[in-house]
């Protein structure tokens, strides 16, 4: 039985604690305590390098892209396209296979409305998983209303892995799209994307990967995964909000229709119809999030400097420690794989009959920030029979003592609620 105030006796091997001083917000106090931020699966904190890149752009580099005939605009365009090249290289894609979007949600909507709307027919199926975030469910529901395609869900196994046998059974010639999360934002489960892509391709289906949780936390290579489409957000990987990425294989993007029309995305506009700009610009209607792209490129540079292998190793260690300490608390239930090798650093749990919101309030009074609720995955919450869970999630700036603070707060919650 662990007690309040117990300190970690472990030394972390992949020590990244020297990076903490790069994150100004970690010096803040919350409710009189140092901020202990355990909600990076919702959004990550930002290093000074990213904040400064945004600041620099607005102070000395601001101009619209792709249209000005003056030096400032040319430089802004170069920085924006340079950001694209940097972000593309980060996932081993070519720059023209990367379109900037508002975020993962916007990218997934573009795929549903740009590919799904034009290619799905009545009788077709979109195969999703029960682990999906609403962002990879609702766009397909909306598009299904127009196409008549049916949504089918792959369940998960009792040990919180995707049920690959069920996937094999459900994957037939009716399936045109397999939509799968690379890493569950609730369970933490890492799904075998390459295996799923191979199986889907054999049946003539495309694979759409929601990589919002994986790209920030582990090395991701779109060619290795053989993903047809892949989406992720800047703000979960040290970058700003309002910027994300739609990756697609070149031939698919070339054949895909734009979901939004407007300036910047056209080749020519006639009164009745228009022709599109080349990829990726045909997916970037209107003035793009220029500062966001530049900020995301700075985040990518920061992560590359640390090394994504190291980020992943650090997360494995801290998650292992958290699973051990949380697992030692009576009546605490963890929803997710027990083995760190097949999971990321988002740990969802419940504690006795204490509602997750009450847990979050009690932790907040100690400066510990966690998420409580259904985490935008209500179908999964229902399947788990846990309408709400508490979730702690880690990133490269977290240290073992953050886990100790979490555990101390959970013991206080037990005391307040009189859990013996």
């Amino acid at each position, binding site marked *: 039985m662990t007690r309040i105030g117990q300190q970690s006796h472990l030394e972390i091997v992949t020590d990244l604690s020297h990076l903490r001083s790069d994150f100004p917000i970690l010096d803040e106090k919350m409710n009189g305590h140092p901020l202990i931020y355990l909600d990076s699966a919702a959004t990550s904190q930002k290093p000074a390098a990213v904040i400064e890149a945004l600041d620099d752009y607005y102070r000395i580099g601001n101009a619209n892209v792709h249209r000005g005939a003056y030096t400032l605009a040319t430089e802004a365009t170069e920085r924006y396209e340079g950001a694209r090249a940097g972000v593309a290289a980060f996932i081993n894609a070519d720059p023209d296979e990367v379109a900037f979007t508002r975020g993962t949600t916007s990218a997934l909507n573009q795929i549903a409305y740009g590919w799904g709307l034009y290619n799905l027919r009545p009788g077709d199926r979109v195969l999703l998983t029960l682990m999906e975030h609403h962002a990879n469910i609702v766009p397909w529901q909306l598009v299904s209303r127009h196409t008549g395609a049916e949504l089918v869900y792959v369940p998960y196994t009792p040990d919180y892995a995707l049920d690959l046998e069920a996937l094999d059974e459900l994957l037939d010639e009716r399936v045109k799209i397999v939509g799968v999360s690379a890493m569950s934002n609730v369970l933490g489960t890492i799904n075998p994307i390459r295996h799923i892509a191979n199986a889907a391709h054999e049946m003539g289906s495309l694979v759409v990967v929601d990589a919002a949780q994986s790209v920030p936390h582990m090395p991701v290579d779109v060619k290795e995964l053989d993903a047809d489409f892949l989406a992720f957000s800047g703000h979960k990987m040290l970058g700003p909000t309002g910027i994300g990425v739609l990756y697609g294989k070149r031939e698919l993007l070339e054949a895909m229709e734009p979901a939004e029309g407007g300036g910047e995305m056209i080749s020519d506009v006639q009164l009745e119809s228009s022709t599109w700009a080349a990829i990726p610009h045909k997916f970037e209607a209107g003035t793009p999030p220029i500062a966001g792209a530049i900020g995301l490129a700075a985040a990518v540079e920061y992560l590359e400097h640390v090394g994504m292998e190291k980020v992943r190793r650090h997360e494995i260690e801290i998650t292992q420690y958290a699973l051990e300490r949380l697992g030692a608390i009576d009546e605490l239930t963890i929803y997710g794989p027990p083995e760190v090798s097949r999971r990321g650093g988002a740990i969802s749990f419940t504690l006795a009959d204490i*509602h997750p*919101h*009450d847990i979050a*309030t009690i932790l907040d*009074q100690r400066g510990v920030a966690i998420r409580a*609720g259904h985490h935008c995955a209500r179908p999964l919450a229902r399947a788990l029979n846990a309408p709400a869970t508490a979730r702690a999630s880690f990133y490269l700036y977290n240290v073992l003592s953050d886990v100790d603070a979490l555990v101390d707060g959970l013991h206080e919650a037990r005391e307040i609620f009189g859990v013996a």
Partner: protein
Amino acid sequence: MSLNELYREVILDHYRAPRHHEHLDSPDATAEGNNPLCGDEVTIELKLDGDVVSAIGAIGVGCSISQASASMMSEAITGKSRADIDELVRRFKVMMTIEESDDDIVDPDRPGAALGDLEALQGVRKFPVRIKCADLPWTTLTQALHST
């Protein structure tokens, strides 16, 4: 801010042993409320005897504050007339700073006076994100009353 002010003994008691936590046979009025952000759910069922709420079912799942508020509310309104309930709802919303007091009946230093046990929920005011939890059953009650 003190957690003891939020998690008063009476609140935890209502959370653990919610009153009137049963469906009614053929209720005269029903409303369902939920908070999509946090998943709190409350169903209010009312049996009306003329102008008086003769029985209530307050069923739900959610955090201690939402469920205790529903339980305490169900005790407070049973046997009361619509006019009395409207006044109670108003006083509750003033106490929770959801509505401003437009008269001097409510003591600004002790806005929960005359609310009985419900005064225990006053501590929620200091935790702004939780006010909507406490308010959910009351909003749902109002919907149920207006549905008839």
